[in-house]
């Protein structure tokens, strides 16, 4: 059994293993960094630390939308090497998911592959952090 953070992007549910997540921050001023990919929104000042922020909607190809009251930045830590903020629409819940909760099937969306978990009637797209943080080979 592992814990997952369930959040919303547009009208879909997504999940990310909480082991990756350091904090959840409210939206804060983001400074644009020139010459970066479109989905890289810039950097934030996270209590003295400069942390890049990417818009998860844009990254995985969900339609762009204005940020709202519930918009949050998930600060994730990649193997202690760097931190990145992921902008998501709304944090919903933290739940335990066991193997039985996962579907055999996976879902392809653009170039991303999600495992699917079911939780109290919801379908949750489980995000593989590596896919989100790193470019696919052909893009490099």
């Amino acid at each position, binding site marked *: 059994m592992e814990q997952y953070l369930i959040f919303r992007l547009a009208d879909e549910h997504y999940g990310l293993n909480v082991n990756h997540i350091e904090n959840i921050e409210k939206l804060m001023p983001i400074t644009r960094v020139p010459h970066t990919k479109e989905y890289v929104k810039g*950097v934030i000042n996270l209590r003295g*630390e400069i942390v890049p922020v990417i818009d998860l909607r844009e990254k995985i190809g969900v339609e762009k939308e204005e940020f709202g009251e519930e918009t949050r930045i998930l600060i994730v830590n990649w193997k202690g090497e760097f931190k990145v903020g992921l902008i998501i629409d709304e944090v919903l819940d933290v739940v335990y998911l066991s193997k039985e909760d996962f579907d055999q099937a996976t879902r392809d969306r653009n170039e991303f592959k999600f495992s699917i978990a079911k939780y109290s009637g919801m379908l949750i797209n489980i995000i593989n952090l590596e896919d989100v943080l790193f470019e696919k080979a052909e893009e490099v």
Partner: protein
Amino acid sequence: MEMSQYLGMFIEEARDHIQSLNDNMLKLEESPDDLQLINEIFRSAHTLKGMAGTMGFVNMQKLTHAMENVLAAARDGKLKVNPNIMDVLFKTVDALEEYLDVIVATGTEGQETNSHLVNALNAILGKPAEDMAVSSAPKAGKKHEYDEFVVRAIERAWTQGFNVYKFNVELDQNCLLKSARAYLVFRAVEEFGEIIHSKPSVQDIEDEKFDFEFSITVVSKQPIEKIRERILSISEIREVKALEIKSGEVERAEEKEEVEEVHQEHYVQETVKVVRQQKQETLQKTSKTVRVDIERLDVLMNLVSELIIIKSRIEGLAKKYNDRQYEESIEYLERITTSLHDAVMKVRMVPVERVFSRFPRMMRDLARELGKEFELVMSGEDTEVDRTIVDELGDPLIHLLRNAADHGIEDPEERVKNGKPRSGLIKLCAYHDGNNVVIEVEDDGKGIDLEKVKQKAIEKGLLKEDQIDLSEQEIIDFLFMPSFSTKDKVTNLSGRGVGLDVVKTKIEQLGGMVEVKTQKGKGTKFIIRLPLTLAIIQALLVTVHDEIYAIPVASIREIVDVAKEDVKVVQKGKEIIMLRNQVIPIKHLHSIVGLEPLLDKKKFTVVIVRRGEKLTGIIVDKLLGQQDIVIKSLGKYLEGIRLISGATILGDGSVAMILDPNMLTV
């Protein structure tokens, strides 16, 4: 045993010893009869051996052991140091350094036994390795060597009817607390008599600087077997060889070992105590410095940076209140943070000697390898630079020094023919210049043949044949182009070019720059300019639209206001301005950072940045002013954005990008 915590300490100390081996051996080469030096070298080798043994690096230990034997022979006058011996010793030190590198990388010493070196070292002594294995083991019939004081103590013991025994104690290989075990042996033996000598010294034994063996010399009236059995009754003792020393078997050693510098009067009564006390004094002397992990300093530095940021913020707030007392407190805070910042910066500073120290050795080898004659003169080794910079300096400097030796300095015959002294001169010097550290590598060789460089540039298609009126500087710039130095052809070129682009890239990464001055037939001088510290710089804050950017003040030459009509468009839409009869190319910050053009303006603010001698004007929207900024990395995720060299947090908590001046002038 948990060794990892000692590994770092071992590596640092071993490096120091290898460095001092190199230094002293270079000196020894100059004056091969200096016993003091040989002694010093011997001690370093001895300590290294002990340390390697403690850490379980067997190969390293064996090699240092063989080295130590040679040095011991030299010290005792049984061997005369000659260039061949020096070569073997130098190679041994190189091998030790390789072990250390492997240890740094993997935590183990690796499989290399360097048996050829061990054999070579043993061959110097004319003995097979086995004979030398246990130098401290007492051998029947052999004379026992002690220094003056011990000999007298022994003689006095005999006249008073004591017996003198020597015990060679070997600890079990699995023994964990070797020094504790040895202490028990000492205590046990002291029940029967006095210990007048131990090898290694008591201090070394306490510090576990011995393998698994040590020997003690004891005066006692008890039978030898009784004492031996008592020692054997202690656990984890593998073997005890006992030997009675009879008169006529003792020899005075010529050299005093450091351990034995104890006054005679105390000897028999208080040997152990006195030695301990003495050692404590030396310990106190050395404990005045502390080795600190650089990461801890980074943490401290970050905290100070935070403090500076919040201080700026409070300063901003203070203006609103206009309260005198409040302002005074803020001023006080300002002073403290500035001093604190300075203090932390100073702690991070290390002398460039750290890199320089390995060069004499390197240049010696290089001279032999190239068959050239030159001398390396270094100055300003005590110039201090931020630790992070020093660590990065090694490679570029090696490059430049090799270049100077290889391409700069001529063959001795050629030099004589040209009326120069036979031996060339390579100067390496460092000094402070304002907020910069300058390092110069200068040779009195043949200089760079600019004509050949030009030819090469045309060959490479970097330059059209009709472009002839290039300034000297422009020609020299070709040398630093990556495409200019290809392995096969450049070696034919009498000038330089090998890897200079690498040197330049490295120095620019450190926020510095490289300049070259050369005169045909007279020599070449490379001048490296580096910031004192990487963490905090003076920057000019500028805006374009609603974005704030920081430009390092060090790279700004001046700021000028230019009327719109004075910006001329030349070929291919490039814009220039004329400033005091100099043509300066112009760029717009908005297009550099990928924003929309500014609204139509009648006057432009142009920040003129320089990189070497090259100037570029950057049109900005507004100037916000100059301030100290703390450079923060954008982190691994965003690395590789060439235009931006980092980010900084402004007084209001917002983030501003720092522009890399080197990229602005491209």
